[in-house]
């Protein structure tokens, strides 16, 4: 189901009407020139009746084609609204942190995906953040996403570490029932000290941009959520003032024709020359440079920059 749906169906209907119309006209000309004149009114009457029926059928075809297209458009718009409603409208203001986030739906059809991001204030100094991805598309994926997002949020607000939150959340899902693969990167940051703790459930590694280098953070990778008893290990590091952490979903780096490491390298190459831009512009430019115009997958990006007091 793409945006070309409507014109194609309408063109098809129009083509049928025109073809039948031309055939009927040719037939009537033949009839008018060949039958005897006394029968002409009957022939004209029957012809007129057939044309009326044809016009009615044609109109119905056109109306149906149009309403199909409208339904598809309505469904897509409903999914987009649902997805938007589930993403935070405003991220909480965290002292000394500049935060930019973006969600982009896949380019085609009703295929709304299950990517998400969250930023959660935990206490006076600490905040938690999550970037996650539920595989598949449509309303089921969005429902699983909402479940995962609010489950993780609850554990993190409760004070659990990222690795414990992932472990507990994993138990709430079962891939053999849910049918979706769920990956998530979870972090807790302290804006005062710059200490960050990260844990990873099968999610692409976040990019760390410091004054002298741009590189991925090697967090020990645990399995995606909901595929059996899992434990996760955390990585702790200090986010220096001026440094930026960029977390994202696989839609940003994945291309069918490319190895995953080439996609990761592309991200480094795109981000490196623009690291000094304001964090909002950094995210906007990165998305614009990385994303294929016809990309089917959705993308979530969350960038966190620590700044001087």
């Amino acid at each position, binding site marked *: 189901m793409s945006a070309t749906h409507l014109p194609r169906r309408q063109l098809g209907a129009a083509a049928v009407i025109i073809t039948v119309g031309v055939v009927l006209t040719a037939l009537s000309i033949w009839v008018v020139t060949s039958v005897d004149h006394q029968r002409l009114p009957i022939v004209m009457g029957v012809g007129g009746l057939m044309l009326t029926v044809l016009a009615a059928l044609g109109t119905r075809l056109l109306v149906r084609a149009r309403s199909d297209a409208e339904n598809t458009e309505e469904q897509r718009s409903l999914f987009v609204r649902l997805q938007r409603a589930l993403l935070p409208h405003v991220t909480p203001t965290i002292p000394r942190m500049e935060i930019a986030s973006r969600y982009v739906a896949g380019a085609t059809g009703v295929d709304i995906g299950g990517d998400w991001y969250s930023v959660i204030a935990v206490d006076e100094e600490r905040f938690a953040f999550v970037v996650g*991805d539920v*595989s*598949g*598309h449509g309303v089921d994926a969005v429902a699983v996403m909402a479940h995962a997002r609010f489950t993780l949020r609850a554990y993190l607000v409760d004070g659990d570490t990222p690795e414990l939150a992932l472990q507990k959340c994993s138990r709430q899902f079962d*891939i*053999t029932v849910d*049918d*979706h*693969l769920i*990956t998530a990167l979870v972090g807790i940051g302290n804006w005062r000290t710059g200490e960050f703790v990260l844990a*990873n*459930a*099968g999610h*692409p*590694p976040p990019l760390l941009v410091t004054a002298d280098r741009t590189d991925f953070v090697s967090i020990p*990778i*645990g*399995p*995606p959520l909901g*595929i*059996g008893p899992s434990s996760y290990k955390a990585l702790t590091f200090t986010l220096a003032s001026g440094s930026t952490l960029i977390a994202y979903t*696989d839609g940003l780096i994945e291309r*069918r*024709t490319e*190895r*995953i*490491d080439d996609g990761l390298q592309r991200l480094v190459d795109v981000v490196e020359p623009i690291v000094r831009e304001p964090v909002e512009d950094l995210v906007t430019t990165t998305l614009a440079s990385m994303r294929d115009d016809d990309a089917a997958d959705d993308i979530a990006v969350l960038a966190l920059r620590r700044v001087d007091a």
Partner: protein
Amino acid sequence: MAEISEEVRDGLCVVRVAGDLDLAVIEAFVEAVRASLSRCEACELDLGAVSFIDSSGLGALVRLRKESDAQGTPLRLTNVTEATARLLQLMGLTEVLDVRTGQD
């Protein structure tokens, strides 16, 4: 569109996939593997000719592994390319799936 073929030898089922293991073929793929799991003592998924796996493909591999565990039928991924192995590693699935890179 991926091509899926099956072969049975000495109680071992081999399901071969060539092309993109993605949403378009996932149903046919899962059905083929389930059928193999039900009639063989062990099952191999030959991924040597797979060019791309999307997240629904990865999800299917995990689901099938769970199903094979429940049935007590071994399920292995064989001829896994370097690119696929790297993807599985980044997804934290190396420990979950039985991954063989070389020829068995």
